């Protein structure tokens, strides 16, 4: 049975919109700095630098909101996982996306009030929100205050290493974003998930007995 339930609390939705805007701007300005070229005008360089710095700081605050909201509200529960059997669950969900959904099989891990994310979402959100984003923020702050970066850990410039890691993590975040947005179109309808992240309500199944 499905029912409409208040799935995303307001604070999470505000955070999410802020987060999405920041990441989009950071990606756009980041790419235009990385591929800066006289013959290929993207965003004008000094503007890109200013915007990237500003948005980076906003993102840091936005991340703090997320971090503490998850620490002190129940939303944090959704970011803890049982690692046992995780591989099997991931494969199951993956197989569903690749084959099951076309054969009309049932969702292996339907969204319920207790289970907000399916295993793939679950793991990728944890990785993104507790590894990639903090890392991109810390390395970004390091580039903003270069004097705080270790000079030369292995004979290579500390700034250089920081920068490569920053760019690489930014790259993976962009990949995540593309997949994230695409997978969000797989829902009750193609736009259903986008509506829920804006108004908070999502169509969820009745809670089952067993937990994932």
């Amino acid at each position, binding site marked *: 049975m499905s029912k409409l339930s208040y799935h995303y609390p307001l604070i999470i939705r505000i955070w999410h919109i802020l987060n999405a805007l920041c990441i989009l701007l950071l990606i756009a300005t980041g790419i235009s700095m990385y591929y800066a070229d006289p013959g290929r005008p993207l965003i004008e360089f000094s503007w890109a630098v200013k915007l990237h710095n500003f948005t980076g700081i906003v993102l840091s605050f936005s991340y703090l909101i997320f971090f503490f909201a998850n620490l002190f509200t129940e939303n944090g529960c959704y970011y803890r996982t049982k690692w046992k059997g995780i591989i099997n669950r991931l494969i199951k969900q993956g197989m569903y996306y690749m084959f099951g*959904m*076309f054969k009309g099989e049932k969702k292996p891990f339907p969204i319920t009030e207790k289970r907000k994310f399916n295993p793939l979402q679950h793991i990728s959100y944890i990785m993104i929100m507790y590894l990639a984003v903090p890392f991109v923020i810390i390395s970004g702050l390091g580039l903003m205050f270069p004097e705080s970066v270790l000079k030369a850990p292995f004979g290579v*410039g500390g700034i250089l290493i920081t*920068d490569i890691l920053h760019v690489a993590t930014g790259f993976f975040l962009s990949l995540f974003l593309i997949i994230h947005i695409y997978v969000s179109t797989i829902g009750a309808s193609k736009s259903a998930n986008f509506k829920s992240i804006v108004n908070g309500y999502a169509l969820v199944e009745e809670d089952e007995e067993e937990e994932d």
Partner: protein
Amino acid sequence: MKKVLILLNVLLIASSATLSAQSDSAKKAEALVIYMEVNDYVVENEACLRCHGESKYILKDESMEREITQSMCRDKIIERDDYYSMVHKSFACLDCHSYDYEVFPHAYELRLEPTFTCLDCHGYDEDYAQYHFEDIEVEFQESIHMSANPDNFTCWKCHDPHSYRTFVRDDEKSVTEAIAYNNDICLSCHSDFSRFELLTDKDEIDLLDTHSWLPNQAAHFRSVRCIECHTSLSDSVLVAHHVQTKDLAVRNCIECHSSSSILMGSLYKHQAIESRGKLGFVNAVILNEAYVIGANRNKVLSFAGVMIFLLTLGGISVHIVARIIFKK
């Protein structure tokens, strides 16, 4: 005869240095012995450096047996360490200066005597062909400095006759050191009004102010030279000398922050020539010294990135097609 006496004197002090511990004059004498490895005229030069190598000098009146101590003007003091490690470290003072300077007070006419120019000794000389002195001379003639004060602005104003060394070409010097050395040359006037005003009637220019448009100013001044932005590049000369008016200065970030960075033709030119072909990375040489956003693009990483991106998009496209076919 006088020379031998002084030499004896020097050696005497030097040998006594080993006995009497670390007195100042002993240290000085020890240093002189080291200088003798690069210069045959150390002793003769002491006749001038006795005054010009110290912050004070002593005037004696033999008949009255009276001594007075006077201070040497700061800009006439020559550091021995600098002198004996510069490009002309093997020179006697009198190679460049008139013998009449042996007399003190120095004669009035001496001051107005023209000095040698670099070209007098280096021009059209095969041994120095790699430096392209003639091309540099042409560039300098066209520079803003020369046109502002053609009578007094000479090569020596930047190439201090008593301390100039080559940094950019020296493989033992890091790029960072070369940048600092080069920028100090410009700053010797542009942050020292007492030297600046000798050559112009202009008011003092506040560099921090005129460059306030440049973010991370301190980082930039540490990692690029002034001439990167203030000269036009040329192929033959390693260090561009054509300092242009401020309207022509580089202001566009992309000139450096791109894969076609001008830094490859200027600051990193020497390294680029040395390591060309050895490394496959775009602008690999910059990698070791600084990270210039946009300029150190790593070909391998960029390629891998683009491939992963395309694979992802490909996967999504296949999924979309499948969804259309199965109407999901």
